[in-house]
């Protein structure tokens, strides 16, 4: 079996999430870090125990599915957070635009 460097994988996953979320990253960091570490630990434990014969194939398959679901849940959370972040950026720009146009015109046109 190929040996996976989980610390490296977690580090890269966290970096990718931090890059996507930028200013919002500190607010979700603790949740994300804990869950990504859990994913890596669980994946490691399942493969180790399956290889050692402590888990039957069906149980290992079900455990892997739970780990997959965790990863997909975090993916959906990041996607949602990125959308919220973009929404805030667009609305901040629109607020500036509105103020500028209203000032230029001299009354509240927008």
């Amino acid at each position, binding site marked *: 079996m190929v040996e996976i460097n989980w610390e490296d994988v977690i580090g890269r996953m966290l970096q990718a999430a931090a890059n996507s979320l930028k200013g919002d990253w500190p*607010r979700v960091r603790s949740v994300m870090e804990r869950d990504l570490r859990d994913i890596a630990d669980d994946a490691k434990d399942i493969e180790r125990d399956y290889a050692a014969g402590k888990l039957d194939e069906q149980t290992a398959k*079900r455990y892997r599915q739970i780990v997959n*679901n*965790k990863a997909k*849940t975090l993916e959906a959370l990041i*996607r949602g957070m990125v959308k919220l972040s973009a929404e*805030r950026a667009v609305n901040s720009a629109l607020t500036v635009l*509105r103020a500028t146009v209203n000032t230029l015109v001299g009354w509240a046109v927008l």
Partner: protein
Amino acid sequence: MSRRIVRGAGAWALTGAALLALTLAAGCPAKFVSDYDPQLDKQLTEFQKKVETFINKMAVYRGKPEGRYENNTDFYQKEVPVEIKLLLFRANLQDKNQETITMIELLQNNLKIMEELHKDHGYLSERDLKQVQRGINTSFRSLMLFEQEKRTGRGEAK
């Protein structure tokens, strides 16, 4: 002369269109994600309590008749489907709520796997519970965090 009028009319049309676009854009705030839903938040908290209570009960009753799958089918076949249906119904009421819907569907899948493990093993083993609980906790934590972010992330009151 007429060419100048046409050119002038074109310029006004362009200016008008640009102003209209600006008005439309600036008048309504952009929305990429649904609003915060206090009812969904409340339903999630109540459902989490129910699931946690069940998991604790299964840990206590491991090896006893009360912990056997056959004696807990009501939870999987009656309580869970109703709760999930209510959550999905609530989440589907709002536009732009795809991430929340996806997270609820993944929670549903985790609960289905818990049932399969329970059925396969007769009881939920310590290892089953650890694995299931970690998956379910991620689901609830992410759903609630995102719901809170929809509110506080938009500068609404905490």
